[in-house]
């Protein structure tokens, strides 16, 4: 269960001017939500705040029984390692690692040995349809393929929460649909919570619910 209560974030550290405030949301395992909003409203910042990559100025976030806003930086990093998965607009695959190694990266951080991590990464690549190319390099992939690898990386360690920031922003509509179907199907089947930030109404329809972020909180789209 993810619960967000009255979250607020201001511009800079001293400004009184809020970027957003009174953001509240509850999501159950296996549930997904798409958050839309105008440019500059703070959608990506909201994701960063949820992931502990940026500090919040008020409110509480709980994941399962853990109060995230009370964690120090190192504890949050350890929690992210175990319970968070990320899908970015620009994929962020490491060019010097093979596809299997890119997918194994979260498992390495969890101190799994090379062999176990490799096996699980390959199995995950099978699930996203790239099992045959496990030893290939990212530079040989198309944008859609790269994003499928990123999805595999986001889910390989069975996280409780998957945060997706414009995952299809760099893809054409046809590939975008394929990637989104794969993303949400994988999130649901893993029983994870999915949180998608996007400009695209088409992309948003793949989630269970669609919300709009405003300066004064989340409203139904």
């Amino acid at each position: 269960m993810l619960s967000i209560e009255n979250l607020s974030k201001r511009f800079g550290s001293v400004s009184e001017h809020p970027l957003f405030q009174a953001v509240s949301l509850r999501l159950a395992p296996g549930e997904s939500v798409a958050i839309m909003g105008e440019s500059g409203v703070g959608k990506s910042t909201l994701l960063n705040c949820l992931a502990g990559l940026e500090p919040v100025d008020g409110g509480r976030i709980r994941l399962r029984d853990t109060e995230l806003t009370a964690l120090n930086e190192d504890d949050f990093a350890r929690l992210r390692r175990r319970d968070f998965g990320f899908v970015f607009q620009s994929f962020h695959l490491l060019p010097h690692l093979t596809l299997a190694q890119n997918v194994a990266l979260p498992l390495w951080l969890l101190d799994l040995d090379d062999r176990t991590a490799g096996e699980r990464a390959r199995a995950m690549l099978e699930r996203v349809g790239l099992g045959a190319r496990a030893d290939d390099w990212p530079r040989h992939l198309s944008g859609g393929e790269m994003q499928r690898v990123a999805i595999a990386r986001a889910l390989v360690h069975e996280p409780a929460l998957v945060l997706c920031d414009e995952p299809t922003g760099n893809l054409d509509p046809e590939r975008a649909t394929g990637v989104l179907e794969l993303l949400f199907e994988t999130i649901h089947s893993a029983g994870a919570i999915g949180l998608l930030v996007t400009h695209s109404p088409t992309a948003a329809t793949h989630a269970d619910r669609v919300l709009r972020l405003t300066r004064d909180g989340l409203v139904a789209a």
Partner: protein
Amino acid sequence: MNAALRHVFLASLWRRPLATSLSLLAIALGVALGLTVQLIHSAALDEFGRGIRLLSGTADLQIVGSQAGLDDALYPLLARHPDIATASPVLEIEARLPGRDETLRIFGIDLFRVAQVTPSLLPMTDVQDGTPTERIDRLGPLQPDALFLSPAAAARLALAAGDRLTVQIGVREQALRIGGSVPGAGVGQILAVMDIGAAQQVFDRIGRLTRIDLRLAPGIERGEAQRRLADLLPPGVAILTPDDAESEVTGLSRAYRVNLTMLAAIALLTGGFLVFSAQLLAVVRRRQEFALLRALGLDRASLRRGLLAEGAVLGLIGGLIGVTLAYLLTALAFRLIGGDLGAGFFRGIAPTLRFEPLLTLVYLTLGVLAGLGGAWLPAREAARMIPARGLRAGDEAEVYRAQPRWGAALLCLILAALLCLPPPLAGVSVGGYLAVLLVLIGAILILPGATLWAMRRLGAPRALTLRLARARLAAAPGQAVVAGAGVVASVALAVSMAIMVDSFRSSVDGWLTRMLPADLYLRASAATASGYLDPETVARIAALPGVIDVYPVRFASLRLDPMRESIALIARPVRTGNGLPLVAGSLQPTGSDDAHPAWISEALADRLRLGVGDPLALPLADRLQPFRVAGIWRDYARQQGAVVIELDDYRALTNDWLTNDLGLFLADGTAPETLMTAIRATLGEQTSEMILPGELRAMILAVFDRTFLVTYLMEAVAVLIGLFGIGTTFAALAASRRKEFGILRHLGLRRRQIGTLLSVEAALTAAVGMGVGLLAGGAIALVLIEVVNRQSFRWSMDLQLPVVALLVFGLSLILLAALAARLAGAQAMRQDAVLAVREDW
């Protein structure tokens, strides 16, 4: 973290082979040079110490005279003293071997006494009356012409029992018979032993000893005996413990060793700077990668640890290569130049290479520390990054936004100046070396400010590439720090060495001119060895046609203070000769008292804290004779100190009419070669050495250049590494700025112009680095000349700026930097502009 450490961090070293190799090379070089110096010295000191212990055996105390020795009447006086159980007299001669380049240390011993004090010097007669060879200890050693060689000496001279060895006494030759060996001498000691009475006779030293080894009676305390016996000794004769002798040489060679070690340390420091440059660039390039890892849950500490591990691995591998190289270099050095690094501190020993676990570990650790030190700031920078920002492209410019640190730089320079003031610690110029380090750090701190200042001075250039380069460097002066730190360090090192060596060389050249006034020089052997010229020989030479005047010089050694090493005494015509390279006082003293004038070297003035006009008592002919310091002169030859007195005074006080070196002034039109032939005909082919002052000067300067060859090589390597550093830095910069170049190409810049832009940036960076490096190098040279050399070797020199060489060096470096950047950036220029703009990595 293990798999991540391997795949993400350590593997990154393989992905940038050039930068990694350069960092490895620099660290390996620093470690290799430092360890080689230590290994050679430790082996030589070890062997030397062994020699001292061997030669002093179980002696509790030693009575030591100067080179002229002590009166053997002292011996029965001591032998009968109630404090003493056994006294063993020794006469040590450095025998010239005609026709050979080397001399041989011969110990004249009392066979019956030596067994009780230094049994390892006991000779054994080899009797060859059929096979196998039978060794019997007989009275053979008492035969007057029997000489016994240590195994190392027998091997070096290729002689066996029954062979003959010719030694030289004055200008006379005498053959000695090899009677056997000194089996107890061990493998590294090149020496020979003969009966003391025979040695006194053969070498014209009747009535003289050089040393008496004493074993104290049971129950006598050494310190008390030393005080009681000191009262019996004439002036100039010292009573020492065997350890004192060892510390004399250790002390003398320490400054030389420390200086070389510091050079190696600077090389290691340059290595550290290169690791810093390479790692900082890698951190910039991998900023998004680290941001991703942080987002995936890698904590700050682990990220920092991973990057430090990269530095440590670089240091460890570099260190291992360096250590291997050091052992190879040491083995090579022992084979080529012997155990004294060419400085002449350890004669007569043949040290062998041994594995030194502790030293090796220390240098390996230093290598790792250099790697860790270089990686420290980049690791901190990476760990400080905010991941959410790092994930966005363009954030890397943050790293280059360095602030000018004038205050910190000024503080470093003030501290450096203050550190030059205190005296040396145990003969080592600790303050001087720390000052050098602080000047270097100050120079690096000045770099961002200097870049900003220089870019402002450039004004608003019209050329597009110059304008773009200026804008880039002004906005991101940190780039100049990354690319220029290695340049500043290597240029400062090279420039300071160039100034120091040039000043030293020209001072030595000037000194030689003053010290060698005659047209031709003649000697029977080196001053410490057994050859000399007697008055008749000098008269015969002076009477040869073409000789208008002779200029005799007598060398001796003196002990001014019982607990110090001996100093050199040079008796020669001063007021009528070509003078001395004086730094204070005059050649024509106007003293009214009975004291004779003496001119002391800077080293002696320093050590005895004497100034012009101060009285000085010199032990000559077993009496203290009054002298007065008339002047202080510059001497580069005798680090332990030297005093010059008038030859006439010396002869009147000592009645010693022998001559070591004879300067000859020739009549106009006399060819030196003709005279040399005449002298050989007079003295014999092999009993004399002659040299023209020009040749001698050339020879000494050649030795000087050879000694500093290591320095020149290091300079070249440092500059090369600095240049490669610029190359790799710009290659990495070009790669990380592909997107920027892509945009510039979109805006209409041609591929060639991007290359020019990189070249101009590199040239500007190198120019700023060069300027700062030149200033830092000048400051370091001043510290080396005025503080380190003065404190380590106690000699001064005149500052000499090799302006043209430095100018050529500076311009070439700037051009080479531009070229290196252009070549390195070629890859970035090949990159497709469209791809570069849209790609994420």
